[in-house]
């Protein structure tokens, strides 16, 4: 409850500090405008026509289903990797041997480019939802796995010893000793993985499906419609920015606050 109140009290200041981010984004738009002025609208449409096209897409109802399909795939794959990555990572972290063994495997997973997984997934799952979902899962899994592994590996043994000496109940042990520590590692990993998932799903859709933002991008590319291309990109990036800065970042700050105070 006090956590919630602290969060709510800090919210206006947090939202207000968004003006700095907005200033940077406007400068990005200025650079975009400059590029479009130099190279012409065929190479790079100006921001206003891209946003205009996006508005038409939203207004006509064309954007909704595509974004929904993309979000569904990204979130399914992401949910799977959060579940599997967190559980397996936490478990692997408990054992020194398991974490030693799993590290090279994770490196292999991380090192394999998502496009390679995509080709495999297309062979295995065809043009179904399975292809993007699997690709997202494989791309996001190692990020979360590593986070979870670090979380349990870095648990403070002395702290545990003290908690045991005081005969802390199991529930308290879990909620007050382990959980805050592990979450402070898991949460950033979840956020990083969400970004990965969101990027990879569009790529997978571009090559493998008939609907979704990626497929829409493929269509606009074949029509040489750069305005629509930029509109879709703006939609995807805008959604990610909104989710990250409005939902995840404030939570992350709250979760990680104990670290700063400890330091």
């Amino acid at each position, binding site marked *: 409850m006090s956590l919630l109140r602290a969060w709510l009290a800090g919210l206006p200041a947090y939202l207000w*500090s968004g*003006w700095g981010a907005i200033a940077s*984004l406007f*400068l990005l738009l200025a650079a975009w405008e400059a590029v479009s002025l130099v190279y012409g609208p065929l190479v790079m449409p100006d921001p206003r026509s891209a946003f205009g096209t996006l508005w038409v897409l939203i207004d006509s109802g064309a954007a909704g289903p595509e974004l929904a399909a993309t979000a569904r795939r990204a979130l399914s794959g992401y949910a799977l990797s959060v579940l599997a990555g967190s559980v397996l990572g936490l478990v692997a972290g408990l054992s020194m041997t398991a974490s030693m063994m799993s590290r090279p495997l994770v490196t292999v997973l991380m090192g394999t480019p998502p496009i390679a997984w995509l080709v495999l997934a297309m062979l295995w799952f065809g043009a179904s939802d399975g292809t993007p979902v699997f690709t997202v899962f494989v791309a996001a899994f190692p990020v979360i796995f590593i986070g979870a592994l670090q979380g349990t590996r870095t648990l403070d043994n002395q702290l545990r010893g003290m908690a045991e000496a005081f005969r802390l109940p199991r529930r308290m042990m879990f909620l007050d000793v382990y959980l805050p520590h592990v979450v402070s590692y898991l949460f950033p990993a979840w956020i990083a993985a969400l970004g990965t998932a969101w990027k990879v799903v569009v790529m997978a859709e571009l090559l493998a499906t008939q609907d979704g933002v990626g497929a829409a991008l493929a269509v606009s590319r074949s029509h040489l419609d750069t305005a629509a291309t930029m509109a879709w990109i703006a939609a995807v990036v805008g959604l990610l920015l909104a989710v990250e800065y409005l939902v995840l970042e404030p939570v992350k700050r709250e979760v990680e606050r104990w670290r700063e105070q400890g330091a």
Partner: protein
Amino acid sequence: MSHPIDHKPFGRLFDRLAARPLFMCGFRPFFLATAVYAVLLLLIWLGFLAAGLGVPAVRGGPVVWHAHELMFGFGLAAVAGFLLTAVPEFTATPAFGRRIALGMVLLWTAARLAFWLSGTLGLAGEVLAAVLNVGFLGALIAIVAPRLWRDPERRHLAFLWGLGAMWIALAGFHADALGGAYPMRWVRVGVGVMMVLIVVALSRISMRIVNDALDAERLRRNGGTARRHGEDDELPDYRARPPRRNLAIFGVALYTVVEFVLSGSVIAGWVALAVAAAVLNLLNDWHVGRALLSRWAFMLYAVYWLMAAGYALIGLSLLGAPVTPSAGLHLLTVGAMGVSIFGVLCIAGRTHAGHELDLRPWVLVAAAGLVAAALARSASGLPGMPMAGLQAVSAAAWVLGYGLAARYLGTVFVGPRPDSGTGCEEVLREA
């Protein structure tokens, strides 16, 4: 500094004049000139707008006269007054003395006269106006630069860069005017530089004003009912943090350059929107709770809002919204510049003359008048608004604001100090 220039009659007159309380400190004659000149300029402009009365003929027409005099006449008088007082204080060096105050204000007056007459005197008049105006600012730079440069940590060099940029704008204006080009683009550069100077100056002034307000708020909290100790922890000190300020300054500078090179471009529009966001971002430091609502803190706070709104309107206008660019520009000049200069006159002007801050209601009336002037002038550029009427209202509100300043602050600037001080010191409290 103490030896007389010469003993000819003119020299004696100069010294007798410089001995008056008005020249006790650099800000006194300049702040008086600022307030009086603000009223004079807008009265003439009101006559021109409402009754078609003539304004001094200068090359480029009435609008050029209006813009040049408000930016480089009124605006630079305030800058000169502020820096001639603040630079010795910031750098912990002796005050500049009476002769510099008198000499500089004479130079400023000559520059005004020369520009007013530049249209009637022909080429010679234009050259004279250029030399005197550019020379006045050059002299100001020559006076303050060594102090700013020799400061061990050089914490206040931003003022020097600002003055240098302002000098380029002023020199560019007169070069264009002499070359027969329309010189208005340089006035817009001047406005950008002025916004930077305002941000830099307010960061210094606000540290004092906002923290005073916070102290008063702490006193209020602890005074009424007995509060538990540690209550103060909820009211941390205010600090004008450099990173946010630098982002805003960078934005304003970038906009000024882009607008100058690619006048009317959409690129400049996006940058203007970025500046608006960066200025609002600056206000993060200011959100300190109730203390913000105190008179002086809120006045300075309003300056940033006017600045942000001005750049936002300019941006929207450049992006194609049905707003004239001058609507946003006048939020910057009438609003941000008008209100901040008024605030500096009230705060620095009184404290360095040995008076406590003015708590009388005229300050609020004048400040509200200036804000209203900015809003009315800006609204006159929106579609479907009665343009002439709103501009007249704006000019009248401005005259009211600075008229009150001239009336109530003028006596402070002209008169002797109420305490035992002999120069620019702040209020001396007898031990």
